[in-house]
């Protein structure tokens, strides 16, 4: 049917209107989201800053003595534990995850790919408390037997649980990045006489490098923010983890263990908010870093 002139015009208007409205709708959604995020940052920050009315910045960041019941609010040990736990997790998870991603994307036959990808996606969705409970009931008794320690709780147990949790995330995103590398790169490399290993190590991985780094950072943010699983296996003692089996505390576990037992208007409460604010700041910096990497990547391509 040939649409009449008038009809076509109204269709055009309708489409324009719909575009406009959806544009406004999306803008409104974004503004609402920014507003909520801003409020969260503002209120946590505001409460957190009250900490420094009672104690000095140096006390909070440099002292190792976290005994709030005796008015000592030194978070240094807990911050260091958080960073070392994250580092330990990545050291364990990244080689395996990236290796697995290369296997799935490059080497494995199709039926293995089709099996592995849904399994990994499923693992991402397992609630962290399940990992924590498995850690508590299976991993810790095992570590206890292996090491001869009495408790087994500590950085190693937490890092193992976290590594298992972040592994599917890192693996799947890296897998996507590797699969996105254009076929022509590989073909060119083969044409120059490269072996399969050379193609993978010298061409595919460097080309997918930014994607893999973004995957690692995604895993890292999950590892830093993870709470429930960590609480169950880390031992929750506010002290510096000198060995892999020293019961310790990280920012998330310390907050969740103490927040419900603390009076509202106390320095202790403010100090816990300061810890939350620190976590927020760390995540924020990491996300900015991802954005920065992403932009650089798109400039090149």
């Amino acid at each position, binding site marked *: 049917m040939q649409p009449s002139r008038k009809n076509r015009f109204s269709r055009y208007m309708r489409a324009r209107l719909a575009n406009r409205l959806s544009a406004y709708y999306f803008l409104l959604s974004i503004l609402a989201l920014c507003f909520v995020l801003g409020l969260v940052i503002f209120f946590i920050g505001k409460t957190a800053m009250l900490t420094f009315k009672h104690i000095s910045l140096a006390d909070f960041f440099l002292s190792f003595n976290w*005994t*709030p*019941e005796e008015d000592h609010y030194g978070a240094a040990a807990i911050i260091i534990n958080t960073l070392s736990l994250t580092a330990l997790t990545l050291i364990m998870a990244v080689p395996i995850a990236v290796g697995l991603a290369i296997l799935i994307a490059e080497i494995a036959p199709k039926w293995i790919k089709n099996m592995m990808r849904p399994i990994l996606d499923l693992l991402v969705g397992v609630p962290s408390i399940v990992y924590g409970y498995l850690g*508590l*009931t299976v991993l*810790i*008794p095992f570590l*206890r037997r292996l090491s001869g*320690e*009495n*408790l087994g*709780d500590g950085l190693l147990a937490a890092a193992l649980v976290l590594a298992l949790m972040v592994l599917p995330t890192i693996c799947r995103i890296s897998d996507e990045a590797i699969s996105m590398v254009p076929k022509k790169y590989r073909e060119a490399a083969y044409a120059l006489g490269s072996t399969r290993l050379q193609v993978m190590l010298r061409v595919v991985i460097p080309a997918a490098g930014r994607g893999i780094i973004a995957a690692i950072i995604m895993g890292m943010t999950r590892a830093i923010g993870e709470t429930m699983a960590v*609480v*169950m296996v880390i*031992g*929750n*003692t*506010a*002290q510096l983890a*000198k060995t892999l*089996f*020293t*019961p310790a505390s990280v920012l998330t576990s310390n907050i*969740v*263990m*103490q927040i*419900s*037992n*603390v*009076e*509202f208007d106390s320095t202790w409460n403010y100090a816990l908010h300061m810890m939350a604010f620190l976590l927020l700041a760390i995540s924020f910096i990491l996300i900015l870093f991802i954005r920065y990497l992403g932009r650089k990547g798109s400039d090149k391509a």
Partner: protein
Amino acid sequence: MKIFKKVSLLAAASLVAVTTLVGSVSAASNLSGKITVNGSTALLPLTLQAAKEFQKLNPKVKIAASGKGSVTGPQAVKKGIADIGACDWDASVDVPGFKAFDGQVANKVAVIPFATIVNKNVKVGNLTTEQLKGIYSGKITNWKEVGGDNADIVVITRAFGSGTRVNYQAKALAGGDIVKKDKNYKEVGSSGDMKTAVATTPNAIGYIDLVYVNSDVKAVSFNGVEPTTENVINGSYKIWAYGYYMTKGQPTGATKAFIDYVQSQKFQQGSLKKLKFIPISAMK
């Protein structure tokens, strides 16, 4: 099909009968209002059960109950968020670590017994106040010093501010310290975690509400007295505490009626006992 029809008809008929019955009962009570209860998780099962029964008697009263931790009870009352703050200790007086909440009245509602528990591999069956003090202050670190095997003692404790910990420290340790140790020391977040941790960690010692104790762990005697409900009532077992409903000033209206109901002989001797708490009237 016929049977199904009959059954559903019967069900509908009984539903009507029950509603009219409840309606006629409630006609007797004109009490109305809204009561918010917040605080101790240990007292939460008791509050929920009491709320269910009380609302049946007074359908115009709405009761909302939640549990988060003992200290949140009196705090919520102080801030006006809750009418009743459930707390494992008397928050109207100072206790170690927590200042008194001024202007609040503590209403006793139950007796909560606590027990020292150890992993099943531990041979020790009795501990004295002095021995417990030694263990928790870090002076005694090996089970052989208190008559057990030659093995390190693994101390598992609740986080500071837990009602169980406040009471245990006051009654079992006679006010003694619980000190953080470098190794063989662990903090857990809840009674459930405590039981799992002690049950799965060899040579572990911990403490918990008596109602949580089952065959997974071994409850040890305190100064030679077994931790049983009978021993709490006859006064020989000392590790117990009253559970309190904190209110801002003397309770009034529906709040008062609810607290009265919880304190009534009917509830204390009935549902409260079934939940394995001890009636307050049992303590002299």
